[in-house]
């Protein structure tokens, strides 16, 4: 994976740039000292590291606007950053670019229960929103496992999901409004407390745009009232196929659970060893199905899910009977990543989505690949929506193992696309999957996407080197290659 070649001219102007930025953001907000830059050198995809030119931490939209305008005028690249938990290298710095950190945008600006929304700054953590409204019985629905740390600005950029998104939607389904600053410094407000867009859905376009279109400086999110109760069923199966059939059976019966997560044998073993959640170890696959709502509803649905599980050959079924027990069922799943981290020096987390019916085929092929590459793999799976997280175990200190893990990962993602799925379900393309975009998209597809980039950032200064394998100049992309001629479709029905 190669990043665009850094511009030595810009690097040489580092001091001058820092001075200019200090005029916009006074005090501690401009970081140039190497030790202080170090914490910003990578995000959650720690295999890649680059020291940024400068880190700037503005506190107001006006400062963000001035910083961007300055960078625009001086052709300096900018990488926005929230908490730096991206798993795809979206916030990976550029040696000739500044990191624009939104860490100081930490205020919850307004909680508006009557309109069922909250207005927050982008540096507020995902869980911070729910914490602010929990006592009043409300919550913000999308719940990435990283929710203690990751910011709502980062969630917007990545269109993050969580275990509850099957029923409650992804970030994009739970956002009402944004304030963004474009690369030229212009501030644009999109949406608000109302629904839908008057014209093109810029809100939907910006969500999931990986920090390439604009810097988010304010977010209005939907708040939901928390369900009265939730209970979980823990079901063990003798095979991955049986577990997959059970998932199909639940949805086929018209039930959309609050969460429906699957783990394979290696993931179960690692999680159980780590948190002692009480998972059965004699099963090939484990399913956690959570039902939420009024007690009568939850009881009614639990009965039905139990019935479906039995019909699909479940060999162990446990239903949570207390909040504590429900939390224990989840503890293993939620700690799956660190649990893997304990049994292997390093792990590489993948994020493809597949049509769920293809799960057995994909897992079988993955086992073959695991043998070919000589690397172990464990799987956790957002089973309801087909989003698969294979965790590849490797040791970065062994020469060549990282490269092998990456190759293995790329093979898995290609497999996902091959069976009708996609490269990424929630972690984003970033730098990680950038060079695989061609397996899913044609050149025309990618060119059309880049034309969208050109709408917002024609000089490609905002987070360049991410998402697109090849950067074309906007002027070139804008050209129309069509010549005037005679009607070229003689066989077309005409009336």
């Amino acid at each position, binding site marked *: 994976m190669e990043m665009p070649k850094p511009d030595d001219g810009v690097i040489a102007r580092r001091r001058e740039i820092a001075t200019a930025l200090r005029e916009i953001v006074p005090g501690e907000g401009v970081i140039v000292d190497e030790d202080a830059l170090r914490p910003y050198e990578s995000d959650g995809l720690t295999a890649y590291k680059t020291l940024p030119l400068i880190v700037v931490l503005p506190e107001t939209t006006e400062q963000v606007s001035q910083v961007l305008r300055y960078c625009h005028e001086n052709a300096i690249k900018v990488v926005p950053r929230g908490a730096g938990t991206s798993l795809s290298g979206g916030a990976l710095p550029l040696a000739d670019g500044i990191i624009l950190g939104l860490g100081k945008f930490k205020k919850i600006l307004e909680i*508006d*229960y*009557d*309109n069922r929304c909250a207005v927050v700054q982008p540096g507020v953590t995902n869980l911070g929103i729910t914490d602010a409204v929990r006592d009043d019985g409300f919550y913000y629905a999308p719940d990435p496992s990283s929710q203690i740390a990751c910011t709502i600005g980062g969630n917007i950029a*990545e*269109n993050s999901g969580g275990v509850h*998104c*099957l029923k409650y939607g992804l970030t*994009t389904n739970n956002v009402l409004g944004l304030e963004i600053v474009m690369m030229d410094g212009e501030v*644009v407000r*999109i949406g*608000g*407390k*109302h629904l*839908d867009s*008057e*014209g*093109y859905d810029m809100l*939907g*376009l910006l969500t*999931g745009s990986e920090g390439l279109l604009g810097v988010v400086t304010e977010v209005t999110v939907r708040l939901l009232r*928390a369900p009265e109760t939730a209970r979980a069923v823990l079901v063990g199966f003798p095979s991955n196929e049986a577990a997959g059939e059970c998932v199909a*059976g639940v*949805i*086929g019966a018209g039930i*959309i659970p609050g969460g429906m997560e699957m783990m394979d044998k290696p993931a179960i073993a690692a999680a159980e060893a780590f948190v002692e959640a009480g998972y059965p170890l004699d099963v090939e696959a484990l399913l956690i199905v959570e039902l939420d709502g009024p007690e*009568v*509803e939850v009881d*009614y649905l639990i009965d039905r899910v139990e019935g479906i599980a039995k019909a699909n050959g479940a060999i162990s079924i446990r239903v949570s009977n207390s909040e504590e027990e429900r939390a224990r069922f989840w503890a293993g799943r939620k700690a799956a990543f660190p649990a893997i981290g304990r049994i292997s020096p390093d792990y590489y987390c993948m994020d493809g*989505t597949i049509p769920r*019916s293809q799960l057995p085929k994909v897992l079988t092929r993955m086992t073959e690949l695991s043998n070919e590459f000589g690397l172990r793999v464990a799987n956790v799976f957002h089973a309801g*929506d*087909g989003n698969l997280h294979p965790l590849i175990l490797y040791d970065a200190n062994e020469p060549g193992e990282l490269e092998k893990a990456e190759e293995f990962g790329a093979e898995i993602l290609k497999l996902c696309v091959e069976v*009708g*799925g996609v490269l*990424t*379900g929630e972690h984003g*393309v970033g730098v990680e*999957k950038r060079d695989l975009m061609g397996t*899913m*998209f*044609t050149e*025309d597809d990618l*060119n*059309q996407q880049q034309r*969208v980039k*050109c*709408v*917002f950032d024609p000089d490609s200064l905002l987070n360049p080197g991410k998402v697109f394998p090849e950067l074309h100049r906007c002027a070139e992309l*804008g050209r*129309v290659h*069509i*010549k*005037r*001629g005679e009607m*070229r479709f003689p066989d*077309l*029905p*005409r*009336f």
Partner: protein
Amino acid sequence: MSTLLKPETVDHVRDVVAWAAAEETPLELVGSGSKRSMGRPGNAAHTLDMSAFSGISLYEAEELVLSAGAGTPIAGIYAALQEQQQELAFEPPDYGPLLGLPEGAGTLGGVLAANLAGPRRIKAGAARDHFLGFTAVSGRGELFKSGGRVVKNVTGYDLCKVMAGSWGTLGAMMQVTVKVLPAAEKLRTVLVFGCDAVQGVAALTQALQTPYEVSAAAWVPQTVAAHSNVGYVRESGASVAAIRIEGPGPSVEYRCATLRDQLAPFGATEELHGHNSAAFWREIRDVRPFAEPGDTRVVWKLSVPPQSGAKLATALAAVVDGEFYVDWGGGLIWLAVPEAGTGGNEAVRAAVAESGGHATLIRAPAELRSAVPVFQPQDPGLARLSQRLKEGFDPRGILNPGRMYPGV
């Protein structure tokens, strides 16, 4: 000379659009033509009829996905979904009768291109939230796609979002994939009688703040209630606030009973069962109160912050001599204005400018739709982005040009 072009293959579409781009001659895109009288009137010499792209190519109920030609009649989609007890959760409205056309027309592509949504918008989202993937030909005559056939996908920009609600101005869609969901086992509606608009929305708000997953919340004045086909509503002699509850049987009964208790202070309550509920919400969804034969009033759709809805609508109706009802818990106002002058354009725009949100002219004679903006005018920054986005997809401005905004 005006021609109707009806491509049957991807290559046809590509050829037609490339030709139109070369000639710089605009095309009017249509599915079944059911929404032709919505938007700014155009003067395209040629019509690009996409109805040949019809038929369901993939439907996997247990994976919650359906792919079909964009020109597939929506009625056919409903029929297929019904067989599996599934639905389009965003409840696409049928504006046929409102626009003086038959019921049940329209195509899947049209529903998506107009980003329609019914009363369940507040819980399940709009067409945009269920639109997973498409193939289309851009105004450059190039075939492109976005999204996929899985419900969870963040690979590349989410171009489904901009295609939804683009009214055919960005590309000619051929294949589309949508998320489908199970239909609820049971359906009931709690009615609260006799509140004025502000009190009615207060009742809806209280219901929406409970954990009971209200799937629709509307308020209709007595004048509107009196025309309902549902006896309980028509004969109530009062305004009606209505709250829909859906889900498994025992849960629906429990939630309705609790809500009736909680909302009793607002007025007398009643409960509609399945059949009546379905009929009532269809009327709300399809704007039937303003769709009676002979009703020629201008109809506006306003999307505003829910709490502003009732006050804004009451004041606005007084100024323009209009009649209104409220959906989306106060966030959606349907306003009918006597057909004279500008159809209340100035007052509507001023009210929305103050509350935030947007207003769209849904039914009006072509002259009025040319004379006043149909879609909410945008701030200069956003307007420039819209313009540039259009250029990115359709640099020669040949696909439904001007349907949304001049020059877009």
